[in-house]
């Protein structure tokens, strides 16, 4: 299975539609296993961020997507076949909330193996674009399981204007994507402090 030609085509379309202007504040990262984490305002966020990565990164960068939505028919073909998405369950039939969360993190960590990078949106849901919501703790737990992985913050601007939550038709604004410098991770840092620091790193990349 070689999904690359289709993926490159989709990347090209995404870059044209979003007119995205990409800035790497700290230069291109070393080709090292990474977690790219960004603010979330639009269905286009993942595909624009993924399209903006250099080709050698794209082939080893997987999105995390909800299994219940993406595991059927054409959606599955796109998610798994083209983007090699890591599908995770949102709801389990039984077990406590903590156990579910732990299992989800375990699955994500396992899906990364020792070569895949991830794109995640730690707010957990799409916002309005005015404020970045507090981060969910999944990012922290994932970092504890994968301490050697490079953490790269990113800020996506104007995608909420192109395709806001609840709209079907896009309006072609020019968007902007800024990648920041890698964030350090210390397993002894309290969860809340780390999540605040990670969120601040994303917000600091906002240009307007």
């Amino acid at each position: 299975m070689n999904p690359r030609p289709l993926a490159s085509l989709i990347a090209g379309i995404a870059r044209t539609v979003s007119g995205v202007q990409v800035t790497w504040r700290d230069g291109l990262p070393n080709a090292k296993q990474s977690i790219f984490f960004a603010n979330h305002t639009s269905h286009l966020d993942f595909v624009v961020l993924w399209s903006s990565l250099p080709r050698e990164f794209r082939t080893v960068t997987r999105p995390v997507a909800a299994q219940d939505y993406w595991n059927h028919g054409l959606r599955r073909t796109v998610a798994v076949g083209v983007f090699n998405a890591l599908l995770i369950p949102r709801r389990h039939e039984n077990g406590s909330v903590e156990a579910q969360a732990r299992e989800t993190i375990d699955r994500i960590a396992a899906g990364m193996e020792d070569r895949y990078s991830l794109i995640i949106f730690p707010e957990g849901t799409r916002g309005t674009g005015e404020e970045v919501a507090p981060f969910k703790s999944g990012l922290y737990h994932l970092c504890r399981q994968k301490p050697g992985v490079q953490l790269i913050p990113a800020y996506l601007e104007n995608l909420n204007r192109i395709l806001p939550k609840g709209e079907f038709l896009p309006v072609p604004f020019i968007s902007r994507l800024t990648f920041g410098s890698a964030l350090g991770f210390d397993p002894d840092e309290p969860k809340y402090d780390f999540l605040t620091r990670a969120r601040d790193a994303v917000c600091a990349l906002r240009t307007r």
Partner: protein
Amino acid sequence: MTPFWQRVDPPLMWAGAGILGLLVVATLVGLALQAAIRAPSARATIDNLNQRIRAWWGLCIIFGLTLVVGPTGSLVLFGLLSFLALREYLTLVETRRADHHTLFWTFFIFTPLQYYLLSLRWSGFVIVIPVYAFLFLPAIMAIAGDTRGFLERAAKIQWGLMICVYCLSYAPALLMLDIPGYGPNAKLLLFLATVDQLSDVLQYVWGKLAGRHPIAPSVSPNKTWEGFVGGVLSATAIGTALWWLTPFSPWAAAAISLMIALLGFAGGLVMSAIKRDRGVKDYGSIIKGHGGILDRVDSMIFAAPVFFHVVRFFYALH
């Protein structure tokens, strides 16, 4: 079928050859400057100059090809320019979530509609945006229900449509005029574009060489009296010398060229004022060395409608 060079009007071909010669000369001058001047302080200016010259090659080739293809080619080109200019403008101004549908209509209905009407050669193209879009868009916005800054938001979107689409569409509208004993009208569009863009370039060149006294320092430190006078006068001289491309007498060509250059200057100044207000240097980065589409067509936006009116009033059949 006759090969295309036999179908091209001789004056049009001569003008094309002249532009090609100009590009070659500019490229050689650029290379000479790059080789001769090593001072680090001048480096950035010369690199930018060469980047601009390279971009000019692309712009001239695209413009030339669409002119040769015929009116459809120019309409598609200017339609695309309008769309991209509008995109740059609206990205820069503030809009709200409730404007989504208004913006969708602006981009995907009114912009193509304007150029579609031109392709039908229907003179009603002059009222669709200023009357119908002007009334329709605020209505859509009111239905969306968000009243905060309503007047300001409606005005900004309407103004974007006026300058990026309506005013710019007057340039290819020249191709639709019926001028007795004159044609093809592609020569008229080439004349407007040449005088207007050369005026811009020559104002830049004169400004770099002799510029001392800024005209409006708070708007643009690069626009100087020396650049303005030198650029406008040399563009007028070139326009006069190109009278054979037009239905004008040499004197009329001089007056009309002066008018194009002055209006072009006003357009550049107004579009700069918007950039200063929004705190940016360029509208975009799509044309290397120049900035965005709007940075390139700002002078055309003001010159095209008035040029169209003058030609229509004095030279065309009504």
